[in-house]
């Protein structure tokens, strides 16, 4: 018998605002947060729209010594890392665990050696400003040269430059702020990172190595380098004239992905101890499963086998059948190849039960938040499903009839059972599925 795992804290930084509640509200109300890009001059990009995160303070709500650390260190944190930290802070504060006085450990009621982190992150491209001075100094005979960089450019670099971008610094800084001395891992599995992190965090809790785990995902794709990369890969929507209607998951009129950014973190602990301390419990993780597209790095399985595998494993892990599911919150990025693979995989795994299980998704609201996706969706769903309704997929007005899934379109559908499935998958890469029981 597995140790049972409860979700007791939620944190989200994303286009719909700060916290899981604003995201859940935006989904319920069908309000898109996709806008014309303002964070950089996108006028020469083919895709000029995005879900941009608002201003936020990565030290908000923290104790004085934590605030001091964040203020001192923030210059060594790329935006991804700051968002991750902010979402982690929200999630920990949301657990209701008592915060210690200045002379105590920060969470005096827990064993800090048994608190850990698994984060889904990405290799963060350097901020271009960091290169300007050094690159200018690297000219030899009117040309940029590596010889010039080594002798003259180099000394103009920010000395801690490397640390600002390492994909394990999300977990590192979060771990320092919250004194997490248990396991700390950083998964670089693109869109699947968040749910893979949850899968691993749950296994760590089950094997008894930790009692409290943060599972997270974070990425900002809102920068000139990644916007160019995903444009070149032909993944992005160019429906620039209609930002709010641009991201159309599972819709026949889909136009591609819309760039998003953000972070999402859930706090996980043993159900028994969460109940013993009288914690608010959002839900219970019943099972998770992972697999992969084995199709090549820039495509998805056309038949959705990778997604189907993850869903089947999650059902097996949870000891459930498809008909036990009350809803699916799908990845649905609105790129045709990506959506088709996912929906075919869902249809295969859900089988005869599929027509009765409403499928929703939130990227019409947020765009694609990369590794933050799966957990942002999970966090939002724990709130928006509470009133017993499965909200529609924003902009999915003409649901793709193939394969036949119960995409929620037009208005909400009743949630028949309090158990739901969340899926993510990375193009050319990892797939993940998580099954959660909603606590109301």
């Amino acid at each position, binding site marked *: 018998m597995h140790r049972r795992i409860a979700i007791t804290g939620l944190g989200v930084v994303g286009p719909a605002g700060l916290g899981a509640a604003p995201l859940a509200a935006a989904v319920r109300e069908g309000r898109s947060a996709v806008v014309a890009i303002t964070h950089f001059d996108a006028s020469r990009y083919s895709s000029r729209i995005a879900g941009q995160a608002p201003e936020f303070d990565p030290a908000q709500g923290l104790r004085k010594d934590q605030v001091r650390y964040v203020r001192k260190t923030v210059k060594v944190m790329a935006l991804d890392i700051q968002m991750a930290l902010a979402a982690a802070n929200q999630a920990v504060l949301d657990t209701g665990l008592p915060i210690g006085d200045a002379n105590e450990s920060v969470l005096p009621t827990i064993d*800090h050696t048994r608190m850990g982190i698994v984060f889904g992150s990405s290799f963060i491209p350097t901020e*271009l400003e960091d290169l300007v001075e050094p690159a200018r100094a690297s000219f030899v005979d009117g040309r940029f040269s590596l010889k010039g960089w*080594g002798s003259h450019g180099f000394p103009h*670099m920010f000395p801690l430059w490397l640390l600002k971008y390492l994909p394990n610094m999300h977990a590192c800084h979060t771990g320092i702020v919250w004194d997490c001395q248990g396991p700390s891992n950083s998964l670089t599995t693109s869109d699947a990172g968040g749910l893979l992190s949850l899968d691993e965090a749950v296994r760590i809790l089950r094997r008894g190595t930790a009692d409290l785990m943060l599972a997270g995902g974070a990425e900002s794709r809102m920068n000139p380098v990644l916007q160019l990369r995903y444009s*070149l890969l032909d993944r992005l929507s160019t429906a620039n004239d209609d930002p709010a209607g641009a991201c159309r998951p599972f819709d026949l009129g889909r136009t591609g992905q819309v760039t998003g950014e953000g972070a999402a973190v859930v706090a996980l602990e043993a159900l028994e101890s969460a109940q013993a301390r009288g914690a608010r419990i959002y839900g219970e993780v019943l099972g998770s499963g*992972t697999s992969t597209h*084995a199709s090549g790095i820039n495509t998805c399985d056309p038949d959705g086998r*990778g997604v189907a595998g993850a869903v089947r494993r999650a059902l097996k892990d949870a000891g459930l059948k498809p008909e036990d599911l009350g809803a699916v919150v799908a990845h649905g990025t609105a790129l045709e190849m990506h959506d088709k693979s996912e929906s075919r995989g869902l249809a295969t795994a859900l089988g005869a039960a599929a027509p009765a299980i409403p499928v929703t998704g939130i990227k019409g609201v947020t765009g694609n938040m990369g590794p933050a996706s799966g957990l942002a969706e999970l966090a939002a769903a724990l709130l928006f499903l509470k009133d017993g309704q499965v909200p529609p997929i924003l902009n999915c007005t003409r649901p793709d009839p193939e394969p036949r899934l119960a995409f929620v379109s037009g208005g909400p559908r009743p949630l028949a059972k309090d158990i739901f499935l969340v899926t993510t998958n990375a193009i050319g890469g990892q797939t993940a599925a998580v099954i959660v029981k909603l606590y109301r």
Partner: protein
Amino acid sequence: MRKRVVITGMGCVTPLGLSVEETWKNLLAGKSGIRPIAIFEASTFPTTFASQVADFDVSKFTRQPETWLKAGRNVRFAMAAGRMAMEDAGLAGGGYDPDEFGIYIGSGEGILDFISLCECTLNGAGPDGKVNASGFVELGITRYDPITELEQEPNMPANHLAAEYGLRGPVFSNLTACAASTQAIGEAVDLIRTGRADLMLSGGTHSMIHPLGVTGFNLLTAISTGPKDEPWRASRPFDAERGGFVLGEGSTLMVLEELEHAKRRGVKIWAELIGFGTTADAYRMTDIHPEGRGPVAAMRMALEDAGVRPQDVHYISAHGTGTTENDRVETLSVKKLFGEWAYKVPISSVKSTLGHLIAAAGATELMTCVLAIRDQILPPTMNLDHPDPECDLDYVPNRARRAKVEVCLSNSFGFGGQNDALVVRRYVP
């Protein structure tokens, strides 16, 4: 009774050789992979040398070499190491259930076109040092290739391997700096123990021998800058005259297999993975906790998981980077956990000749533990001429040594505070 996990295949590409046996032979002979950097023009950098893979051609290891033309060295190394590991395990031709076969790789970035990045940046840079994205993209669109861009993402080695072998089990890639592949293997063991897969292809692959990699470490003054004329002397773990680590590159991948599955296949078993420990320092970005809090806890967790006592350990493969801080804290940590036995258990650092393979380091070092068990011989810490007085353990200085080796502990500690340890034992039915 929990499932047992054994190693049934190993493959590697390292600066000391393009196979397991060649790497091992050169390692025992004390040969060094450290040479002047040939991969890019580094002559004016503070550090001009690295431990490099030489004479490597991915087309010798794969049927469709054109698939990897735009891939980084990390991917190419991994394709070769993966092929060798699969062949070694008798799986290269299939004969496995793809749904029960996963991947867990500690892997770094592909290689970015640094000169184009700088030139595109300057194309958008104004007099105030701000970069206008329009200027960047105007040149970028003519310079950048979509697949080359995609290949930079660190999950590419795992994704290529999954596609190459049609693997459908759990596929993870992680990047916890220098601890990544030890952690990857440890978590892969957990995936097998929990029944998520029967087989895992696991290990690491990385090359940071590129302009931004060397720049980044030079800025942190973490890597050695000399002697430039005798670079093979630059990596000096536990030596008083050390000057930081030396960057290396390469890949080691292993086939990990559930014991009963391996027995049914009737394959050779290299060794059994019996323990894994993983913790974080939660102290500072790059400094290790001065009391070795995290490393001690990780080693203790690994030994407890393995069900062995400190005095059962015959050899420790040190993280041993050759930075003063690492060497001293690691030494202190071993003393704290092992007590008197610390002075009796040999500990060595293969980074003295291999260099630091970063995300591939831990897997490569675990491989040397497996070979030490097979051959009853310990690889040396080279360049240990004037031991640091604070480092007073038996580091197997300068010469390989015959020894009884049944149980080994392999340590990896990473920037960012991750500490990981694995315990490997001779397979006993």
